[in-house]
């Protein structure tokens, strides 16, 4: 009898940990979810002003890594962020939406300035040297790499990249990761809960 109970308990424990692992894998598609996401960075904003992570403390940060040449997923994700912020109304004032370029060769502050203006007034575009971008991408466990479609010229390359939206706390700690295709109302509702 006791043995049967033990087996049952063991099975239950397995089921719970399995479910937990499954949830983690779904919400945080990184190699090791226990690894810290985020960290210090030195970049320049779309006004060419140098910034560090310290400039963003005190408010939540909504971070997306992308590139302005990207015509499909990046603008769609930025539109989702913009709509979620509009839905949050006043509370959006506690959030700094940030677009970090994984394509510093083409994304100069000037290019970013045009890009962010197309979406939301509170959106900040960040770029840097290739080394600085590599550093910040590593800190966020973001993968990126150049690809050239067949027949494209040297400046017409595309970037493969991790395409989630990170919500970071006012202390810079990772809170959650949204999929690039999350509906804006879901994003707004979850942010509201975590603010």
């Amino acid at each position, binding site marked *: 009898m006791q043995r049967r109970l033990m087996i049952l308990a063991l099975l239950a424990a397995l089921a719970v940990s399995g479910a937990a692992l499954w949830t983690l894998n779904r919400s945080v598609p990184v190699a090791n979810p226990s690894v810290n996401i985020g960290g210090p960075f030195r970049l320049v904003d779309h006004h060419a002003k140098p910034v560090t992570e310290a400039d963003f403390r005190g408010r939540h940060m909504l971070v997306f890594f992308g590139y302005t040449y990207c015509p499909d*997923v990046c603008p769609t994700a930025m*539109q989702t962020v913009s709509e979620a912020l509009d839905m949050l109304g006043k509370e959006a004032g506690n959030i700094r939406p940030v677009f970090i370029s994984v394509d510093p060769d083409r994304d100069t502050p000037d290019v970013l300035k045009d890009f962010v203006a197309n979406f939301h007034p509170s959106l900040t575009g960040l770029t840097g040297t290739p080394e600085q971008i590599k550093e910040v991408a590593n800190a966020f466990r973001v993968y990126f790499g150049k690809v050239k479609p067949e027949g494209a010229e040297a400046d017409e390359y595309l970037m493969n990249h991790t395409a989630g939206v990170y919500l970071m706390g006012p202390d810079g700690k990772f809170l959650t990761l949204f999929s690039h295709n999350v509906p804006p109302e879901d994003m707004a509702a979850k942010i509201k809960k975590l603010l």
Partner: protein
Amino acid sequence: MKTRVFLVAALMLAALSLSPKTFAADITVSDAWARATPPKAKSAAAYLGLKNNSGEADQLIAVKSAIAKKTQIHRTSMENGIMKMGRVEGIDVPAGGMAMLKPGGHHVMFMGLKQQLKEGSHFPLTLVFAKAGEVTAMVKVMKPGGMGHHHHH
């Protein structure tokens, strides 16, 4: 009275010839739209729906436009949270069926954009099909980052 009848008939004819839908065409294009771009943007994407009215499977094999140096059929795919984008050979449009080009999936990719796409404007896009041949559609430029008319605010 006769003049009025004539006028009505003339108007109807004019309306028919102006209608964006080509009658009895094998392929019908619906809701073609593109996102408005910043002034100096070098790329853009367009989305649309394709309906094959014929009893034979067809394939979109090329796209042509005057707004960019290169116009290609691309597809975005996600693998483990990583977004990949690349050129595809074509998009199948099954007999009597549909194919959708939409954000996060298949799209028409404009590389080396020659002009800014301004909200509310239109531009022609020629779609080349293996069987139906060339079909030209007018693409409507929507709000930046917009999701087309299927998206409700």
